[in-house]
C-alpha cells in the first residue's frame, strides 16, 4: 500500500466554528436594530450606516494592503461589525465627513494600530465614537426626532434624548416624578420611538438580536446580564434613597445605550475577559461606572466611557480571574 498520507498530531477533527461564522452571526443579530433605525430615522440612518460600513472596510483594506502589506482580512466580517456599531453610536444627522473620520479612527487607531482583529484592547467602534464626541460635541449631541425626521438628513428636526432631559432637569432641582411626565413613555423607549443614536433607541429589537446570539452560542449571557443587573440595582438603590432626585432603575435600563452597550459592545469578545468569573466582574464594573457617570459625571451618557475604562482592566482581570481548575487542590 503506497500513498502519500497526511501526518499531523491529534485532534484530527475540527468543529464547525469559524471567525467568519461568528462575525456574520453578530451582523445578523444587529439587523433588527438596524432596520428599526431605518424606520425611525429614515434617510439619515441609511446614509450614516452605509458610509460607516463602507469607510470601515475601505480603511481596513488600505491599511492592510499598503501599510502592513498583509493579506486582506476584510471578508472576515469584523470591519463590517465595527462600521455598523459605529453607526449605531452616531446621530442620524451627522455630516458624512464626520462619519468617515469616526470610521478612520475606529479602524486605524482602534484596531489596526494594535495589530488588527484580536489584538486591540479597546472596542474600535467606541474609540471612534468617543473621539467624535470629544472633538465634535455639538454635532454629536444633536438628536433628530424619530419618524418626523425620516425624510431629512443634516437639517433634521432635533430634540434632546430622554437621558439628557432628565439629567438637565434633575440638575435644576426638578423632582423626578414631575420630569417623568415630560419625557416619552417607557413603552416608546421600549419600541424605540425616542431621540438618540441609531442603535440605542429600540430596546426590543436589540433584545431580539441578543436572543439570536444566545441561541447560536455566539456570546454567553454573563456580561449583558451582570452589566444590566448592576445598573438596575445600583440606580435602584439611589432611587429608593431619594426617589425625587434620582431617575428610577427602569429608566436607566431603557435609555442611553445601556442595552446597546450590554448586548453588542461590552460583549465584543476581543475586548472582554475570558473566564466566566472575569466576565461577571467586567459586567458589574461597567454597570457601576455607567451609573456613576450618568448621575454624577459631566456627560448624561456613561456607557461608552464605562466600557472603554473596563476594557483597560481586561488584562488584569484575565490574570486574576482564572477558571476553576479540575481537581484544584484546596489550600
Amino acid at each position, binding site marked *: 500500500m503506497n500513498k502519500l498520507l497526511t*501526518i499531523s*498530531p*491529534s485532534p484530527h477533527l*475540527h468543529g464547525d466554528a469559524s471567525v467568519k461564522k461568528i462575525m456574520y452571526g453578530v451582523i445578523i443579530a444587529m439587523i433588527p436594530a438596524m432596520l428599526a433605525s431605518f424606520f425611525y430615522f429614515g434617510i439619515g440612518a441609511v446614509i450614516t450606516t452605509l458610509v460607516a460600513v463602507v469607510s470601515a472596510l475601505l480603511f481596513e483594506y488600505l491599511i492592510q494592503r499598503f501599510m502592513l502589506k498583509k493579506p486582506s482580512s476584510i471578508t472576515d466580517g469584523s470591519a463590517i461589525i465595527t462600521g455598523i456599531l459605529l453607526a449605531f453610536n452616531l446621530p442620524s444627522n451627522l455630516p458624512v465627513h464626520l462619519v468617515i473620520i469616526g470610521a478612520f479612527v475606529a479602524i486605524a487607531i482602534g484596531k489596526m494600530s494594535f495589530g488588527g482583529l484580536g*489584538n486591540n484592547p479597546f472596542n474600535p467602534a467606541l474609540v471612534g465614537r468617543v473621539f467624535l464626541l470629544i472633538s465634535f460635541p455639538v454635532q454629536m449631541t444633536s438628536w433628530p426626532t424619530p419618524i418626523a425626521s425620516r425624510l431629512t438628513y443634516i437639517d433634521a428636526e432635533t430634540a434632546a434624548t430622554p437621558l439628557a432631559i432628565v439629567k438637565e432637569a434633575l440638575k435644576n432641582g426638578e423632582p423626578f416624578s414631575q420630569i417623568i411626565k415630560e419625557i416619552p413613555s417607557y413603552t416608546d423607549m421600549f419600541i424605540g420611538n425616542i431621540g438618540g443614536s441609531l442603535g440605542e433607541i429600540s430596546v426590543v429589537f436589540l433584545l431580539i438580536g441578543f436572543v439570536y446570539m444566545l441561541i447560536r452560542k455566539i456570546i454567553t449571557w454573563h456580561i449583558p446580564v451582570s452589566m444590566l443587573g448592576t445598573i438596575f440595582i445600583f440606580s435602584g438603590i439611589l432611587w429608593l434613597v431619594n426617589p425625587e432626585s434620582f431617575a428610577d432603575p427602569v429608566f436607566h435600563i431603557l435609555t442611553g445605550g445601556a442595552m446597546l452597550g450590554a448586548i453588542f459592545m461590552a460583549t465584543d469578545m476581543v475586548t472582554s475577559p475570558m473566564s466566566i468569573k472575569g466576565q461577571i466582574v467586567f459586567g458589574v464594573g461597567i454597570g457601576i461606572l455607567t451609573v456613576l457617570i450618568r448621575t454624577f459625571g459631566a456627560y448624561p451618557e456613561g456607557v461608552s466611557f464605562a466600557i472603554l475604562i473596563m476594557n483597560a482592566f481586561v488584562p488584569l482581570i484575565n490574570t486574576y480571574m482564572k477558571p*476553576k481548575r479540575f*481537581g484544584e487542590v484546596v489550600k
Partner: protein
Amino acid sequence: MLKTFPKGGVHPPETKLSANEAIQVLPIPDSVTIPIAQHIGAPSTPVVKKGDKILVGQLLAKSSGFVSANIHSSVSGTVQKIDNVPDSSGYKRQSVIIKVEGDDWDENIDRSKEVKDDISLSKEEIIKKIFDSGIVGLGGATFPSHVKLSIPKGKTAEILIINGVECEPYLTSDHRLMLERSEELIVGTKILMKALGVGKAIIGIENNKPDAIEKLNKVNDNSSISIEALKVQYPQGGEKQLIKALTNREVPSGGLPIDVGAVVHNVGTALAVYEAIQKNKPLFERIVTLTGKSVSKPANYLVRIGTPISAIIERSGGLPEDTGKVINGGPMMGKAVNFLDAPVTKGTSGITIMPDEESHRGIIKDCIRCARCTQVCPIGLEPYLLMTLTEKSLFERLEKNDVMDCIECGSCSYTCPSDRPLLDYIRLGKVTVSKIIRARRQQ
C-alpha cells in the same frame, strides 16, 4: 438527567459507522511483527531467537520491571528475525517477526466457548496471572494492568470503574465487545473486583449505545455491579472525567484515581482479564474497528497482535481513493499513521480513515479571544494562554498555569474558530516543563 462531567467538553459528530457490524475474525496473516514494547513503561526482553518454533500464546519477551509487560505470540510458526521495524508512526521498534505456520495453540489455553463463572484464584494469584498474561490497558493508554491493581501503601481502593464509554467518534470496538461478550465482561469485572477487594463496580457507558446498556443489564447477575448510562459528551471516557461523572469525586491535580479510591479499567481490559484468569489465555488478540466515511465496509475485527494494519484495510475493501489520512485510534486522540504495514499492537482500538478533504487543517488566524477554548476545556485550563506562553518560552508561568494537568483531549483545538493549533503547542510546552520539573526533583 444523564450523568456527565461538570465542566467543558465538546460533541463531535459521532459517526459510529460500524456500530451494527458484528465482530468478525480476521484471517491470520502470513507473517506477524510483534514489537517488544507495546505498553507504557520499560520494553520487554526477548526470550526467543531466530529459528525458534513458536506456539500461539507462547512467551516472546519478558517484562523487564514493575511497569512493563510480557509479550506473547499471537501465531504459531518460526521466528524469522528480531529486528527494528517501523511502528505506525514510523519510529523503529525492536520486534519479533514470525513466519506463520498453521494455528497451533499452547495446550494450556482453554479454547472452549463456555463461559466460566466461578473464580477460584485468590486476590494475589489473580494479580500475578494478569501480570504473566501481559495485560495492559486496552482503551489505548496501554498502561500495564497489574500496576493499577497493586494498590500503594496508605491508599485504599473503594470502587472499580469499568470504562465502556467509547467517546471517540467512529470507534465501535468496545461497543461490540459489550454486546457480544457481555457475560464474559461481567465475570471479568467480578475478577477485577476480587483483585482489588472492592465491593462495588460501575460500568459506565455513553447513552448512544442503548443496546449494550440493555444487554449488560440483562446478563448482570451481581447487585454490586451497576451499569450507568452517561451523556454523550467528549471526553466522557477520560479517566478523571469518568470518575467525576460516576462518583462525583475529583482526582486532585497531579494525582491518580486511587487518590479518591477509584480504579478504572477499560471493557477490553476486563475481557482480557477474564480470558487470562478463566481460560489461561494471554493477551495476543484484540478487537479493532476499521472505519471511515469512504471505507466500503466499515467493520469490527478480532485481530491477532502483529497483523499489518494494511491487512485489515484490505479486508474492508482496500484503501479508499480519496484517503488523506489514516489514524491509529479515533480522530480526537489517535495518531496519524505513516506506515501502513506497521503492526496492530495491544493499544490499537481502531483504524480511522479520513478522506482528503477532512485531513487538512484550516489557516491559522489570530486569536480573537472568544474564550471558546477555555469554555470547552474539561480541566478548566486556558488553552489560548498556554499556547502563547509556549510560543514565548515562558515556562515558569506555563507551569504555574497548570499546563501539566492537560489531558490532551484536543477539545480546545477542535473548537477554536481561528484554527489555532492549541494542543500542538501545549504538548510542546508540557515536554519542556516536565524536563524542568524532573531537573528540579533531581537537585
